């Protein structure tokens, strides 16, 4: 399977990776190698096998609905590059996203 430059750029955009035009051709070769591995996997006949969403044959443990966390805002805000009035500050983004 071969990728177009446009597809490469879209994949990079979705992952928010800034890819320079000059590195596109090298990336293309590497990604196509990876896709080849998946094509190999696709050759296996799985028509008789149930889809598996997790390798462990267990059920998810659950917890009771109780508040167990304390307010650690000051501690947690210290990790942020920028904070003010108890808020994390980020570059301005105005775009509705659901």
């Amino acid at each position, binding site marked *: 399977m071969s990728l177009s430059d446009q597809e490469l750029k879209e994949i990079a955009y*979705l992952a928010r990776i800034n890819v320079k035009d000059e590195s596109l051709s090298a990336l293309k070769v590497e990604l196509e190698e990876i896709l080849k591995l998946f094509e190999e996997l696709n050759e296996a006949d799985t028509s008789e096998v149930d889809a598996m969403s997790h390798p462990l044959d267990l059920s998810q443990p659950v917890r009771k609905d109780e508040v167990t966390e304390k307010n650690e805002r000051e501690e947690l805000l210290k990790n942020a590059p920028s904070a003010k009035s108890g808020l994390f500050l980020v570059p301005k983004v105005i775009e509705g996203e659901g």
Partner: protein
Amino acid sequence: MSVNLDNWEAVIGLEIHVQLSTKSKLFSGASTDFGALPNTQACNIDLALPGVLPVLNEEVLKMAIKLGKALNAEINSPTSFARKNYFYPDSPKGYQISQMDKPIVETGYLDIETEEGKKRIGVTRAHLEEDAGKSLHDDFEGQSGIDLNRAGTPLLEIVSEPEINSPQEAVAYLKSIHSIIRYLDISDGNMAEGSMRCDANVSVRKKGEKDLGIRTETKNVNSFRFVEKAIQYEIERQIHEIESGNKITQETRLYDSQTNTTRPMRSKEFANDYRYFPEPDLLPINLDKSFIDEVMATMPEMPSEKKERFISEFGLSAYDAELLAADKDLADFFEDVNAVSKSPKLSANWIMGELSAELNNENLTIRESKVTSNKLGQLILRIEDGTISGKIAKEIFEKLWSSDNEVDEIIQSEGLEQVTDDKEIESMIDEVINSNPEQLEQYRSGKDRLFGFFVGQVMKASQGKANPKQVNDILRKKLEK
């Protein structure tokens, strides 16, 4: 914009996000209380710090199962979570944990009342997912402030089939869902505060056409009334576009309640591609039959069942029963009043009459009523047992509303007992007749409608306390003499 709607049919599907009223979050033990100071309820799991793992809140499973049951739906077991990948500052993980292939609730329906009678709306699915935080865009010198208190709050997204055909049906469906989540007590359903949010997928097609038109999704609609208006606007806009020879663009639009219009959200460079995949941090969840049975055992009576019971057990009219049963708090209040008064019809009348009027006046909910259910029950009981007249009861009700006094205290201290003694009533009637000889003459010479005049005079003489039925009976006898 005027368009002829007659040749067109609207096709509407609703996505309703319901914030579940758990104490703690979907995957962490942080509190979900509304209105706390920014980021005081956002723990390391909500912030997606390296190395943290989500742990599922059992309560959300119970809430989802209850909703599934109320929507006559299948409960999937195993049910599993999936990652929905997108970047947005108020979603710290860079993805949202949601459900894709195995939503907990699938394939149900809901019957709504329309002008043409009962209509069944299919419910495609209801899935669990986590809410995002909030971005604040002002006052940070060109930066946005992020409050993650809401991040990780459990949501149940209820998706309908595109089987709704008018704004009115959409509101009926939405109200019905609202009533159900309040009955199940799984959310406070407060649309203004965002605990219940509605997105509307709307398309139009010429009547008789089989294929669906191109749809838009309208977001940001936060009241029942706005849902109706936003959909109405969007239907008319689309018809107008098509009739003007334009094409509908598949897009997300925002409703603006100030102008009552919808407008497109800024379109993105590339189409969204959420690249869902099974959530590796969470195992699929097996819901044992015993667990589901346990939850089922806690199912309350639902609105439609309650309505039927109010009709069969209390002999209420379908109209009264429907009105009372639609709101759980109102229905509970009615049953509490009736437990004391033992008079269902009168209890229903008082609640929907005097009490509702006062509540509306002061903009109070039934829970905030200044007259308790017990007192209203007592009041009605005193009408039923003949202690007071209905007219006096209204006066006492006003006093109950504005004071803490008990019903019997007011009746005794103000001497408001109904006069039921025949002798006493007779003497009042005699006095009235004697002091109105002219009217008596006229009545006896055929002016029947003067009967009302005499009743009025007697009631006035008794300060409204005479039993009206006795007054009628005795007066008629005396006047005929």
